């Protein structure tokens, strides 16, 4: 049995150790906000926080993270009002929306490291792919989230 804590809830799993965390979240736990985009850590649609760090869950084998704490988009806030979510709504960031859970989780991690990130910080840290090209709005929203977080 492998145990992980996801969004504060502990789960024990009888599953192949090499199963990627992504598919544990989506198919075992029904947390479909975390998305499959490429399966090779290129796109970042599957980004979650693993023990506090932004991580591409398609490349994490469940057997390697026994006992880990995981945060997904569903656990980011109870009512969708995390400063990053609020900033995303203010700037109407999403278009198709498919990559946005991953973008938001990556942005939350960036702001934790750097509460007031520069454009260059955003360029180097936010490497998730958005096929709709929402990058200009993601950039604005991250700056706005930094303001909101300061209150």
């Amino acid at each position, binding site marked *: 049995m492998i145990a992980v804590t996801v969004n504060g809830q502990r789960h024990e799993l009888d599953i192949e150790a090499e199963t990627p965390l992504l598919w544990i979240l989506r198919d075992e736990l029904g947390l479909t906000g975390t998305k499959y*985009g490429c399966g090779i850590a290129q796109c970042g649609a599957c980004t979650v926080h693993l023990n506090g760090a932004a991580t591409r869950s398609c490349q994490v084998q469940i057997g390697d993270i026994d006992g880990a704490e995981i945060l997904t988009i569903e656990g980011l806030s109870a009512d969708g009002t995390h400063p990053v979510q609020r900033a995303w709504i203010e700037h109407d960031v999403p*278009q198709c929306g498919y990559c946005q859970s991953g973008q938001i989780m990556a942005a939350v991690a960036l702001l934790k490291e750097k509460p007031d990130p520069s454009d260059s910080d*955003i360029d180097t840290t936010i490497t998730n*792919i958005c096929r709709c090209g929402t*990058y200009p709005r993601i950039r604005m929203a991250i700056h706005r989230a930094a303001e909101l977080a300061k209150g």
Partner: protein
Amino acid sequence: MGVLSREVGLSRRGFILASLSAAGGLMIGIRPVDAATPDSAGAELGAWIVIDPDESVTLRVAKSEMGQGIFTALPMILAEELACDWRHVRAEYAAASRNLADKQIYGSMGTGGSRSVRGSHEMLQQIGASARERLIAAAAKRWQVAQSECGAANSHVQHAASGRRLSYGTLAAEAAAITLDQEPAIKAPESFTLAGLPLARLDTKPKTNGQAPFGIDTRLPDMLYAAVTLCPVPGGKVKSYDDSAVLARRGVHSVVPVPGGLAVVADRFWRAKEAAAALQVQWDPGAGAGTSSAMFRRDYRAALDGPLETARKEGDARATLAATPPTGGKLVEALYEVPHLAHAPMEPLNCTARVTTDKVEVWLGTQNPDMALQLAAKAAGMAPEKVEIHNCFLGGGFGRRSMNDELIHAVTVAKAVGRPVKLIWTRETDMQHDRYRPQAALRARALLTAGESAAEGSVARIEALHLQTAVGSITRSLGWKALAPGIEPQAIEGLANLPYAAANLLVECVLKNTHIPIMFWRSVGSSQNAFVVESFIDELAHAAGEDPYKFRRRLLMDSHSNYVKVLDVAAEKAGWGSPLPAGKGRGIAIHEAFGTIVSQVAEVAVDKGQVRVERVVVAVGCGHVINPRLVQMQMESGVIYGLTAALGDAITIKDGAVEQTNFDSYPMLRMAEAPRIETYLALSGGKRWGGIGEPGTPPIAPAVCNAIFAITGKRIRALPISDTDLTSRT
């Protein structure tokens, strides 16, 4: 005219916007994916509008939400005439099954050609106006007053003389029973009060908390999962396979043949995917065996030598060019080439299906629910009337989800195993079994001669212009009806409607297909034709020794003043002509597609051969605007989509198969490479209702390539740009 995000200047509109934003009560209504029946208990006013006693107004959308904002734009049009309170509006998909049963009551539900707003605004206005009048009639009847004494606003009907007022929620059931003697007139766009505002999208919140339902998120009781392995060469099939080892794996249920390959069914997707990869299959590659992109390239080049069909002819360009060189004439000739391109939507193709003895249910994101319904019926061997399509949010479409190959797989497998199945194409399958933007070769030849301009004296004029394209036929690839001799609109859009003045003009086309399936890719034929026309016009400007902006302007002035207006906005806002540091330059392009004229100026830096697009100024002439925020978003999106392809993407064929597999070999533009993008509205109002989903894409490739020429003197004639070595200057 101004930056769109600061568009709201008028106080009346500003007030409305502020009051709507303050409410913050917008909600999205997509039916829960496994709900058996519509969730609305309210009164239906026609097939489009449901008003509940609690005042919520559900507006049905018969087009697909794939990021372009149609779940906001079309409800805004309905709400404009309905005079309902926008804060109570929910959007939900119209059902394809009802469209079938009710004789196309929703019209064509296909989403494409940037036509959702321009193609349905009149119908939606009429439906909204009609419902409003029925609500007014219901109130008038209750009050025993003349209908003409009553008016509607903000989800209420008022009787001004008596000061009485009733809410839509109170009146809806009675209004539903009323038939109007005659249909009311609809508003002219000039009197819109809601439409035209930069309202927030209705679908934003669920797209920020993981709750937005995409097809891939569908979960049904007793559901199995499936992954496919398809013949690497499109059009090929399974020769033989051995599934004994795979069937012994944990969780694997069965192996089911599907068109083009095999599906492995398991109790978890990961198990199905791993098993599919391990399946031993011998393939019969079919007619495409042994082919390559290089072979296609030779074939398309050779096809340009004829025979070709005439798409447009004015004067005799061929004879004029053959007679060269006349005194003072300058002949310019260039061959341009573009590769196949993948759509690569972020959500890989997937479909969930449940097939029982008397019903087929399908969950997916489709751009064409009407066709999906027919495909599902055929794959299940059942009557179309037995099919229900549950359209979901599309994780990107860009044309790919106009033909749902994944649906045929899912229905086939669900029928075979007798349980619900979620079938997902991996990214690799999605990329290697796309229906691609066609590869093409185009040739342009022109004769420049000295002309006279009243304002500028002696200037160059285009004495003759000859444009030829050799490209695949999309409709033939899709198996649609046979074409009139050798021309289809998709091949020549952006060529045959060339706006520039040329004394003699000939546009020719030859359609030539390979085994590689091709389809509509955001902006379709304009995606390659704008690159060629706008690059070649730039070549002509330089050959004539003229400024590329002024050269275009002069050749458009007499017959296309609307183009000049758009071009001027782009040039002015970009600071065309103002100095830039060494290694940087600007390029300009203009193109009309789907009823909208877009001009873009790209500000580009080339450093040690590396191209960096720093800033893009977009001037968009789409006429009437339902929501300027959506226009701005689509211009940004279109630029980045086109730029991604132009900079470094190509689908190449080796031994008949696609070589690229994922985002490592088919790279995507990311944050660090994304330019600043400024969008300006040009050409407001008038008679024009232009599309916005696609027209932002075509101008970016030529604008960037023209900037690269301005910096390096190197003319990019084959995409992607990364195929050209820019490390040394010419």
